[in-house]
């Protein structure tokens, strides 16, 4: 296992140097919050944040992506025949991803890359992505990662882990991909035992500092139809305004739509993020809609994350406890409370 320590100035230099081998995505301060952006021009990375407003899921699974292109001019020989649109699968690095968001890629991966079907876009982009995690010294009050199989310093899904020691950053390889990344870094010194001990203390302190605990241990045993017919869904969904913010922010929400867009005699087939919160999501051509009512859609979202996923993949819940939906829901619907309701029903 390789460990390296960098002064904070050197770290920025190292990131600049990695641009030779990777598209480097870093947290950047934008107004009151941080988001991941491509390191280019005079953009300044900023590692002074709790978590980014949006998870970096769009770096692997873009919000909108051209899948195919085609000509509609019938005089062309290949008119109306779909061809792969050019795509960029060159190596990319997400530097500073929180462990919860990295774990989300692992949970979502079982959907996109399963024994029967492999989503080629996901698989290739995931293969070209290196995830450099960033331990959470001070988790948010809405976080509950330790309740759902992750943690503020969890290495699940990470290639390397970075720890903020105050004056310096400690980096540690997790996978072979991560070790290769560390070897590419010009600067930095080997970490001594004292430095490693300090990082471990920070991790322990962060875990102890987690304020939310959510019970999910009984979900697998519950009868799916009993939960589906539970009396609390109307109440849970009462205040929901179907804005879809929860699905947009969620690092494990993966649903998408496929649409054609035409520009003159050229067209693209595009895939876009979609959300189970919208009635159109399930509207049949006939007009029938199995999830016509708001409570049905809210139930679907929670049942998917906390029951259907659990049953289908035996891989825990499809939630990493990042707390974004709790923090940003305009009507304060709290997945922690819903999980407790379901787990205790």
């Amino acid at each position, binding site marked *: 296992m390789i460990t390296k320590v960098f002064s904070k100035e050197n770290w920025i230099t190292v990131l600049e140097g990695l641009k030779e081998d990777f598209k480097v995505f870093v947290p950047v301060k934008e107004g009151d919050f941080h988001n991941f952006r491509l390191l280019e021009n005079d953009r300044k990375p900023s590692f002074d944040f709790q978590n980014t407003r949006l998870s970096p899921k769009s770096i692997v699974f873009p919000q909108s992506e051209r*899948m*195919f292109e*085609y000509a*509609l001019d019938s005089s062309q020989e290949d*008119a*109306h*025949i*779909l061809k*792969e649109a050019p795509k960029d699968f060159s190596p990319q690095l997400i530097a500073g991803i929180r462990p919860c968001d990295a774990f989300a890629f692992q949970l979502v991966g079982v*959907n*996109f890359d*399963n024994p*029967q*079907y*492999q*989503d*080629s*876009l996901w*698989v*290739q982009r995931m293969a070209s992505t290196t995830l450099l995690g960033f331990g959470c010294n001070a988790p948010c009050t809405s976080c509950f990662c330790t309740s759902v199989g992750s943690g503020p310093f969890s290495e699940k899904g990470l290639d390397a882990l970075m720890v903020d020691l105050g004056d310096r950053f400690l980096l540690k390889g997790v996978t072979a991909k991560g070790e290769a990344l560390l070897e590419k870094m010009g600067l930095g010194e080997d970490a001594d035992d004292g430095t490693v001990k300090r990082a471990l203390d920070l991790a322990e302190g962060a875990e102890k500092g987690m304020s939310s605990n959510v019970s999910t241990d009984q979900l697998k045993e519950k009868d*799916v*139809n009993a939960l*589906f017919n539970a009396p609390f869904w109307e109440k849970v969904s009462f205040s929901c305004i179907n804005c879809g913010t929860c699905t947009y922010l969620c690092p494990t929400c*993966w*649903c*998408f*739509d*496929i*649409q*054609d867009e*035409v520009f003159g005699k050229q*067209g693209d*087939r595009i*895939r876009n993020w*979609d959300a*189970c919160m919208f009635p159109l*999501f*399930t*509207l*049949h*051509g*006939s007009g*029938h809609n*199995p*999830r016509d009512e708001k409570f*049905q859609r809210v139930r*679907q979202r929670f*049942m*998917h994350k906390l*029951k*259907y*996923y659990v*049953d*289908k993949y035996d891989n825990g819940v499809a939630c990493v406890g990042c707390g974004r939906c709790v923090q940003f829901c305009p009507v304060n619907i709290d997945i922690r409370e819903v999980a407790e309701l379901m787990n205790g029903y």
Partner: protein
Amino acid sequence: MKNPYLPYPVRIDKIITETEDKNLRTFKLVFLNPRDEERFSYIPGQFAELSVAGKGEIPIGIASSPTEKGFVTFTVNKVGLVTTHLHNMKEGDIMGLRGPLGNWYPWDDMQGKNVVIIGGGFAFTTLRSSIVYMLHPDNRPKFKDIQVVYGARGPGMLLYKEELTEWEKRDDIQMHITVDATDDPDWKYNVGFVPTITEQKITSADDAMALVCGPPIMIRFTQPVLEKLGFPPERIILSLEMRMKCGIGICGRCNIGDQYVCKDGPVFSLAQLKQMPPEY
């Protein structure tokens, strides 16, 4: 790496207007690359995504049988953007086909059994595929009696009329064609709803499997008839519809509980459905 969303290019070889309201048309598609036809190896009960460049894709049951070579057919109801455009396309036009998708009727379990087919309206497509498949000389010995109850609103709304007439004449399949109502004095088949005709014509569930495909109301009223006849839920097989996009269990919209209708279905036994949330 193979992109699972890329359709095979196909040419519309023939378009047949099936019903008097002209809302149902059958499209006979031929693969532009002969090798794609081999790759598109399907089993009755499966569906595919029909792709129209510039409009999008629609999931439609395969109406042809794998015993019919050189083409694949789909009967499409005109309801939305893609289907309306498709209805305006003409023979010779190029489009796309992605599949085959989903599971199929339980052919292994049906071997050596009596087969009861119950269909209503335009949901008869994969049942047509199944009948043609079973009637093929290579396959017919594998099944005992084959009975078919097929109904539509009126005589002009029945699909595949020529074939229905042919099947009527055969002695290795018993047809019970029916219409909800008709004022045609020459109508020589049944009049009545599918559940009623099923109750009158199907007399036994012994050693039999029932394949049921139709509008939700037909399914709802046929189910108790079959149960009364003695069909256990394991031997009542249904094919479901759902709004779909990817067709391969990834895009997340067609789930019923933890099952994706596109990948884990569209064929489910009633026994399976009883274990799933009633959200379809």
